């Protein structure tokens, strides 16, 4: 990257800088004119010079100046106006100049701001672009949070400065010079005083600021290191807790913050010291003006108007001067920041731009063998992972890489994936060096999965299809405002040197998954998910999540059919007792009292969980139904029972999982509440306390908790209250609840709850499993299996995929690698988190799936267990960085080599 900030700015904003310079120069004319006016107004119409005779007139807008060397210049001979008219006319001109100056300022500031923002955008993009082109080894040394800070925070001040880089010195310098010139024209001596002070400022202040720059650099480095450490704590939070090192981390962070504080405080001290001095010098000048200028006026060598104008002009001098000095400070500051960032981003062996160039058309298949010649790879410490290995993987063959602990097979797989670069020797595809091939070839015709999976924080679907998003394949039709916005986006992207690629385009390369478009991609997705045995997990996720009805319309449309099918099936199998269905006119014994009252799914916070009992409308419905007192008494009974049962237990006791009414932390609060309310009549209990108690009853399920609190009368009262609740539902609650309707899909509820439309009985331990498998059967029969899988694919995997288990992440990674149907499939201990039985199963499936439809990709699989090698055409054995055996499974088995040893 360009090491000099000034040159970087100039290269990219030459034209704009020149344009704004011209505007700034133009703005000087009205600016200068506005200096002269006060003198004219005071001396002319106010003091009456030239209007000594009543009715005298003076020329107005007669513009003439005594300029050095040129003599008197007459711009306009003017109109004749009397004294009052002249005063108004001159004042109006003054107003006009104020407006013009203001407009110039507005234009210049806006222009500069935009210029700066564009450059900021360019720098940030350049930086991220470079991150995308760093060689792999760089990432072993740098903390991601530090890179993020550099891109986000450290270049931020550059944006503010760039607009000012050239304009500011010209504008402020111009202003200062104008003011200075004006003072000079009025009175040379006063001018000289101003010049001397200014020179002192110019010499002294930057000197004092040198220390500020040093401190500023330290501040930047310590802050960057801090964000690196914070990022590390977040990423390694597990290690922190496991080893009880949270206090060590606290100490480390506190120490860093202390250092940063010290640096920043030093900075402040200096900054305000410099400011004080600067202000003092600026104030010194008017003191001299008043004294010396006043003296000259008294002497009659200077008129009052001139002195007023000089003092007026001087007011405009320290401002620009100070800003000019500030600008210089900012310049040095951002130059330092820029250099710091550029140093970090200047890396040797950057990947050439052509390697990652956008390629729309799919490259031809890789039909040449992949060969390693004299390949050596060392780790960061210099230990040899692979020592002069030569081998060739022919297209279509399946190869198991078996490795002892120090074998180096993983390094070979990483080298094939270009994640590690050879220290010597090379890997070639045919005659081409693999590292010279564009990513458009290696990223589409080869795929790689390893035990170290990275998933993006997005849906399962996005992560699965990530491997297909190489280029924008469709052009999105934009209309109306969206089209304007798109044009603007493209235009601005161009101006900032950003690419115009449309993120809203369809980037998914369906062809490489063997599909023709979104409609038949699903088949391919389902096959790879089946192959890695992940479908069932995703279906479970789908059942447990609520479907997005704009996408999964089919599920909502056929929900009635689904529910009916489930009932029929349960009856048919004699399992009706497993599920208690929701019926609008009946109490559901397997559901809580709260669910029976609401008979709907809360779609907003108003009626959810604890807010329900406190909701005024809901409370009023209970009252009308005559339930308020009953439920209160019930809540008291529950509170007593719960406290009797649980009060002695430590809060972390596992029995608390069974207590649905309250959490372990709430027990003491309820204990005191109970004491307080025990003998108090219902009428004397406050609303809040009532809600606290009534809430307990809402979680009660008779067959599960067995306190014997539910009677037939109470159940019918609850059903009546349910109807009453919906009859007068106020408008503000209309959207907070979705009523259970046998004929309607409930958007706020999970898919499982929707299909079940009831509650699974509490007294059948295996009921949930049985029902789930029945639900899957039914979905499959009705052709809705795909839809449910699609719901599951909406699941957000969380940061780094942490909402999935390690095994699920690895399976997903393999599925992603399989989906693009590569010519070379490199798998580096891809399933290490799974047990051996599952690994074998997935291995078999993957080999089969990869070869479906007559495909015959080469498969290189670093196996975790030598026994897995049996499934491959060829087995290569590594030990201590050397290739020690190479042959078919039978021949190696027959031999007496390491492979045989490893197997036994």
């Amino acid at each position, binding site marked *: 990257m360009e090491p000099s900030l000034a040159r970087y700015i100039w290269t990219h904003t030459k034209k704009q800088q020149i344009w704004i310079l011209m505007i700034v120069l133009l703005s000087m004319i009205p600016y200068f004119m506005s200096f002269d006016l006060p003198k004219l107004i005071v001396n002319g119409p106010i003091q009456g010079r030239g209007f000594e005779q009543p009715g005298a007139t003076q020329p107005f807008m007669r513009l003439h100046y005594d300029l050095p060397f040129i003599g008197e210049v007459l711009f306009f001979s003017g109109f004749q106006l009397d004294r009052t008219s002249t005063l108004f006319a001159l004042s109006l001109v003054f107003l006009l100049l104020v407006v013009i100056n203001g407009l110039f300022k507005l234009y210049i500031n806006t222009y500069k701001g935009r210029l700066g923002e564009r450059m900021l955008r360019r720098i940030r993009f350049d930086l991220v672009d470079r991150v995308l082109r760093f060689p792999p080894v760089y990432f072993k040394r740098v903390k991601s949070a530090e890179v993020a800070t550099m891109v986000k925070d450290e270049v931020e001040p550059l944006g503010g400065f760039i607009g000012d880089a050239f304009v500011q010195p010209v504008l402020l310098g111009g202003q200062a010079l104008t003011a200075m010139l004006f003072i000079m024209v009025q009175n040379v001596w006063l001018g000289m005083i101003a010049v001397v002070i200014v020179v002192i400022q110019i010499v002294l202040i930057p000197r004092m600021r040198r220390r500020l720059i040093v401190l500023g650099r330290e501040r930047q480095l310590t802050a960057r290191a801090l964000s690196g450490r914070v990022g590390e704590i977040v990423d390694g939070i597990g290690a922190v807790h496991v080893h009880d090192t949270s206090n060590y981390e606290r100490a480390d962070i506190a120490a860093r913050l202390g250092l940063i504080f010290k640096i920043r405080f030093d900075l402040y001290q200096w900054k305000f010291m410099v400011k004080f001095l600067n202000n003092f010098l600026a104030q010194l000048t008017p003191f001299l003006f008043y004294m010396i200028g006043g003296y000259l006026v008294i002497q009659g060598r200077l008129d009052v108007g001139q002195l007023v104008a000089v003092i007026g002009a001087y007011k405009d001098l320290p401002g620009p001067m100070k800003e000019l000095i500030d600008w210089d400070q900012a310049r040095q500051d951002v130059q330092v920041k820029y250099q710091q960032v550029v140093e970090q981003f200047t890396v040797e062996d950057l990947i050439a731009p052509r390697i990652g160039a956008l390629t729309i058309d799919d490259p031809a298949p890789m039909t040449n063998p992949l060969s390693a010649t004299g390949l050596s790879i060392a780790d960061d410490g210099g230990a040899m992972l692979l020592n002069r290995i030569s081998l060739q993987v022919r297209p279509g063959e399946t190869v198991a890489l078996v490795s002892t602990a120090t074998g180096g097979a993983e390094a070979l797989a990483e080298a094939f994936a270009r994640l590690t670069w050879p220290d010597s020797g090379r890997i070639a595809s045919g005659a081409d060096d693999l590292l010279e091939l564009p990513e458009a070839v290696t990223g589409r015709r080869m795929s790689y999965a390893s035990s170290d999976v990275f998933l993006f924080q997005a849906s399962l679907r996005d992560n699965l299809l990530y491997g297909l998003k190489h280029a924008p394949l469709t052009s999105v039709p934009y209309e109306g405002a969206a089209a304007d916005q798109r044009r603007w986006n493209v235009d601005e992207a161009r101006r900032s040197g950003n690419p115009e690629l449309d993120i809203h385009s369809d980037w998914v390369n369906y062809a490489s998954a063997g599909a023709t478009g979104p409609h038949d991609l699903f088949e391919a997705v389902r096959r790879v998910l089946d192959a890695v045995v992940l479908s069932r997990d995703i279906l479970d996720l789908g059942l447990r999540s609520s479907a997005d009805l704009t996408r999964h319309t089919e599920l909502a449309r056929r929900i009635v059919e689904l529910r009916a099918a489930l009932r029929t099936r349960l009856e048919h199998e004699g399992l009706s007792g497993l599920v208690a269905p929701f019926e609008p006119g009946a109490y559901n014994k397997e559901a809580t009292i709260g669910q029976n009252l609401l008979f709907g799914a809360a779609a907003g916070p108003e009626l959810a969980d604890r807010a329900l009992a406190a909701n005024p409308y809901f409370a009023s419905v209970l009252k009308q139904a005559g339930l308020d007192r009953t439920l209160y008494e019930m809540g008291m009974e529950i509170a007593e029972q719960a406290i009797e049962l649980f009060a002695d237990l430590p809060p972390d006791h*596992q029995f608390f999982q*069974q207590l649905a009414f309250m959490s372990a932390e709430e027990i003491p609060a309820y204990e005191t509440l109970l004491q307080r309310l025990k003998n108090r009549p219902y009428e004397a209990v406050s609303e809040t306390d009532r809600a606290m108690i009534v809430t307990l009853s809402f979680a009660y399920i008779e067959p599960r908790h067995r306190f*014997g609190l539910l009677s037939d009368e109470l159940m019918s009262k609850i059903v009546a209250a349910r109807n009453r609740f919906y009859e007068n539902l106020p408008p503000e609650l209309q959207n907070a609840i979705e009523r259970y309707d046998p004929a309607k899909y409930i958007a706020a509820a999970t898919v499982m709850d929707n299909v079940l439309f009831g509650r699974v009985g*509490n*007294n059948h331990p295996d009921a949930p499993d049985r029902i789930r498998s029945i639900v899957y059967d039914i979905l499959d029969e009705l052709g809705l299996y795909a839809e449910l899988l699609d719901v599951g694919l909406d699941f957000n995997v969380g940061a780094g995929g942490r909402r999935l288990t390690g095994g699920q992440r690895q399976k997903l990674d393999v599925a992603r690698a399989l989906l693009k149907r590569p010519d070379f499939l490199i798998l580096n201990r891809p399933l290490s988190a799974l047990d051996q039985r599952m690994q074998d199963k997935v291995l078999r499936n993957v080999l089969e799936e990869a070869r479906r439809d007559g495909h015959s990709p080469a498969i290189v699989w670093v196996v975790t267990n030598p026994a897995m090698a049996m499934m491959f055409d060829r087995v290569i054995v590594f030990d201590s960085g050397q290739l020690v055996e190479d042959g078919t499974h039978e021949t190696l088995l027959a031999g007496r080599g390491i492979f045989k040893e490893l197997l036994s």
Partner: protein
Amino acid sequence: MLLKDEVGMLQRVPLFSGIEPTKLKLLAFTSDRVSYSAGQILFRQGDEGDAAYVILSGSADILVDSDSGPIKVAELVPNSIVGEIAILCNSSRTATVRAASPVEALRIRKDHFLRLMKEFPEMTIEMVRVLADRLSHTTADLIDARSAK
């Protein structure tokens, strides 16, 4: 059957007779009430043991697999406990239990059961007594079987 009735039933189970009623109530509350119709399997031989069962009503057969099919080795009557061995030994189920009539039972989860044993030594002693008793019965049966040969 309500919680308090269950507590009454549990008190009649020899294993729990030494435990005070409030703790038994807690045990009952944290256990699942399960029901089985005749012929349904409570658990199968070879399954992982995750819970013990106290039969509240009905009867169940204990079956052991043999070459000639399952053999009924004992019958469970109300107030008996079954399935505790697999929990204690961390092993798989040594027999299959099948409901002979409609059965109501309390299902005590493994972790709850172990926690109880830790907290109530009287229960653990009772447990050891029951097991020792069973062992002596089994030994007697074995001697009978050997001498009958």
